[in-house]
């Protein structure tokens, strides 16, 4: 569990450090869905003693790491369509039951990537709204609203230096007011729907710089 006091380090977290930090904050015994891509790396830091059970929306609880060699079975894949393994205690179910599990609020944590997050917790992670692009949403909107806590794992700024935490998202929304925490390379931010962003950690950036680079967003330290 996280200790809820304001912390800083001199340098931004690496992706692995970020994955580790999220894993640390996931309570033992939790049921968790890790989104496709970067969020998947969180599993590298979930120690077996924690007994965290992973959910994949294509119908399984209790999958293990990527399948290797003779473990590979094309009937056993995760939502990213990667062959995975089975852990003892696993269960299979159909798509409607799987999404009922998610929509019904039974998962403890969902970790997702994001293009943008608003100060009130709106999430944009499925479309950049580019004209003429072919849309595809998959389970993004279901995942966004489908856990007791939705954590976003992202860089605080794009490669071009644009901020991703905004007063309002400019990209098409995935979900409204659904994000409770942002785990970014440069800090951990808690959102409670009030619009005021609580800063729990900063890494390689000062609070003053955070404020300067996020006009229109109100920050408070814990």
């Amino acid at each position, binding site marked *: 569990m996280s200790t809820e006091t304001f912390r800083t380090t001199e340098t931004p977290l690496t992706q692995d450090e970020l994955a580790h930090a999220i894993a640390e904050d996931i309570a033992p015994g939790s049921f968790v869905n890790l989104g496709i891509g970067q969020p998947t790396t969180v599993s590298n830091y979930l120690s077996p003693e924690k007994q965290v059970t992973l959910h994949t929306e*294509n119908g399984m609880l209790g999958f293990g790491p990527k399948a290797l060699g003779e473990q590979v079975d094309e009937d056993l894949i995760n939502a990213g369509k990667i062959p995975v393994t089975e852990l003892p205690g696993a269960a299979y179910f159909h798509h409607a039951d799987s*999404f009922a599990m998610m929509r019904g609020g039974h998962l403890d944590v969902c970790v997702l990537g994001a293009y943008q997050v608003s100060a009130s917790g709106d999430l944009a992670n499925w479309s950049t709204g580019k004209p003429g692009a072919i849309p595809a949403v998959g389970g993004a909107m279901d995942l966004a609203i489908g856990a007791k806590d939705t954590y976003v794992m992202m860089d605080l700024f794009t490669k071009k230096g644009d901020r991703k935490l905004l007063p309002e998202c400019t990209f*098409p929304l995935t979900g*409204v007011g659904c994000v409770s925490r942002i785990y970014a390379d440069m800090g951990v931010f808690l959102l409670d729907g009030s619009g005021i962003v609580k800063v729990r950690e900063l890494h390689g950036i000062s609070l003053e710089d955070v404020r300067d680079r996020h006009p229109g967003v109100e920050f408070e330290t814990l």
Partner: protein
Amino acid sequence: MTEFVDTAAEAVASVSNGATVLLGGFGNAGQPMELIDALMESGATDLTVVNNNAGQADAGLALLIKERRVAKIICSFPRQSDSWHFDEAYRAGEIELELVPQGNLAERLRAGGAGIGGFFTPTGYGTELAAGKETREIEGRHYVLEAPIRGDFALIKAYAADPYGNLVYRKTARNFGPVMATAATHTIVQVDEVLEEALDPEAIITPSIYTDTIVGIPTGSGTKQREEREALAAGRRKPCLATKTAAELAAEK
């Protein structure tokens, strides 16, 4: 009463032009590839297809789309790295797309099978995929009204059928199959094994009431299942069982 046929061609022979066809599968798992190939051969056209995706590479659904046999597709994730046939048809305005969040797609099919006229879902509220749809605040949460989806036909892949027409599936190949089986007027199933004995009544996933036509077609699923069965019979671990945790594997690197 469930009918058993010998070939995929016979199984899909009744699919008519203009039909709404539910296609099972998520990625390759549970995709009724041989039934889709037979549908391709059958010449049925002007179809509305419901599937999670919109075809990949040069096989199955992608070929149906390439040949412009699909007038409309209802799916959650059409765009993939190898969805070029869909991409081309879509950009040419030659296929209609209804984009549905994956869980709403599953729940709409479930509603279609369960006789539910519509339901309020929180998924998609406040997004452009809910634009124009009825919304409602219920006990402080916001919901969108979604309609059931039914098909004239479902084409699905299960693992095994018993002589009564009951089905079991295999691992994550189960996915949309059981829900689509309930939502179609005529459900066509390809299975790796047609059994001679009844399945365990406690373990049946799709009861025979939902299956209309079954064809046995051996695939790679059967090979893997036999390996698993042999391993368990010999007291060995299942081949698909994890030997190390993700944390251990990561530590080794």
